[in-house]
């Protein structure tokens, strides 16, 4: 494996994107789990598929379209939540399916042979291109810099929104930012595990990390390390056995979570 990693360019790309995905996942995944935005993230991921379909239709880079759809849907869900009295879950459920439907529609309209969409739905880390990698690096820089620079503000907001507002923090702005960062994370993860499997990679590492630490920073750090382990192991299995990488990564992550939760005493 190590020899192959040094020789083959596609394996290097795969490995780098696994590490980058794990960093985004460790930081934002922790926020998603603590702020209970798991279903929200699933919804944002699925609407991104509409963007991928549109990109194929327009002939542009699929991840760019995915990013546009993810960010707009994230902010749209926020707006709808504030305005309607309907439970956000209902709106989310509709957007979730609408995104997928639009994706299918755009792909059907695209002239020529239909593109292979399974790599976007289920991820294919072994086909990560230089462009994908570049987009991933930029997204990661934005995520790490934003959270890093405003860490104390985010911490305060995540724990108690009302109190954050009373002490004068720009809560509405922090909330928008959180949703946009979730959208960017989704884009980073699409190539690695795919739209359908993103939720598990966002939630499994922080849920395992939380069983060993009671601090937000260490949860993020430990989640990142766990993510790197899961992604590398998945990548290796995928390369060695020729099975889909997204599936391999998710099965390892979720199985580890269940095994650890089962054999660990209930409270730390």
């Amino acid at each position, binding site marked *: 494996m190590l020899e192959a990693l040094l020789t083959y360019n596609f394996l290097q790309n795969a490995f780098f994107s696994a590490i980058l995905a794990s960093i985004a996942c460790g930081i934002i995944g922790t926020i998603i789990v603590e702020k209970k935005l798991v279903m929200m993230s699933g919804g944002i991921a699925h609407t991104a598929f509409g963007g991928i379909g549109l990109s194929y239709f327009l002939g542009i880079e699929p991840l760019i379209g995915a990013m546009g759809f993810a960010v707009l849907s994230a902010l749209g869900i926020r707006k709808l939540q504030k305005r309607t009295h309907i439970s956000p879950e209902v709106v989310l459920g509709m957007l979730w399916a609408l995104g997928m439907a639009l994706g299918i529609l755009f792909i059907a309209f695209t002239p020529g042979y239909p593109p292979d969409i399974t790599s976007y739905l289920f991820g294919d880390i072994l086909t990560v291109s230089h462009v994908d990698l570049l987009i991933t690096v930029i997204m990661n820089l934005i995520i790490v810099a934003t959270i890093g*620079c*405003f860490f*104390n503000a985010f911490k305060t907001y995540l*724990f108690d929104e*009302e*109190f954050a507002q009373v*002490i004068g*923090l720009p809560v509405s702005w922090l909330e928008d930012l959180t949703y946009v960062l979730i959208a960017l994370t989704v884009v980073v993860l699409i190539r690695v595990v795919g739209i359908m499997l993103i939720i598990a990679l966002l939630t499994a590492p922080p849920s395992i990390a939380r069983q060993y630490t009671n*601090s937000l920073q260490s949860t993020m750090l430990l989640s990142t390390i766990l993510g790197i382990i899961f992604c590398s192991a998945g990548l290796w299995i995928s390369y060695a056995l020729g099975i889909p990488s997204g599936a391999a990564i998710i099965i390892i992550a979720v199985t580890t979570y269940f095994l650890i939760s089962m054999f660990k005493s209930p409270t730390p």
Partner: protein
Amino acid sequence: MNTVVQLEDVDVYYGNLQALSNITLNIEALDFLGIIGPNGGGKSTLLKLIAGLVKPSSGKAWVLGSPPCHTPGKIGYVPQRFNLNREFPFSVVETILTGRLTKNNLFLHRYTDKDILAVDEIMRTLGIYDLKDRQIGQLSGGQMQRALIARALVMEPEILLLDEPTACLDAGSKSQIYSILKDLNQYMTIIMVSHDMGVISSYVKSLACLNMDIFYHGVPELTDTLLGQVYGCPVELIAHGVPHRVLPHHPEEPNA
């Protein structure tokens, strides 16, 4: 005496639902105001209005001379502890430190030694210093309440707002919280929502009865008629072991 909170004909609506109606209320500096009233009577909304968390739909509100949301740092807010995420990976000291955060230097913000000293001192005063490294979910109700009061106090506020600080606490923890508040009241205005009518009136300086609008505001002495008006049904006052009579003596039962 100067007025710290001034409300004039304030209405608050949540969508079509009216929470507060026609509230006119002046609160003087260094008052200890207890607010009682039935569930859904708008007690929490009144606190949120003063804290700047909800805006008046009509009417005028001033807190320390400006509109409520323009006074960050001067108002300490202690929310109902049941609304918080107890699972959150935060230690007691980290939770309290967030009270030192201001909107001015959020970029690359680090807590200073002064912040940490201030937090240490307050934790000692409130008797939770030994718990500083515990995760907040591992605190008892009374300890959690003291941690939340500490978080509001490290802001060094001029007004302290508390939303049912003693709900579901045992008698010991309750009197502990009340005696802390009594000490604080020497240099701070306190506005507190509570359900313990019996205990509240032996600690507070003035009392307001709220059910959409204010039925009573004045010295802490309650009558059956007044409580009947506020709660819409006869209410029995039972003061648990408090050497203070809540109801004035009445000569005979009015409707007996």
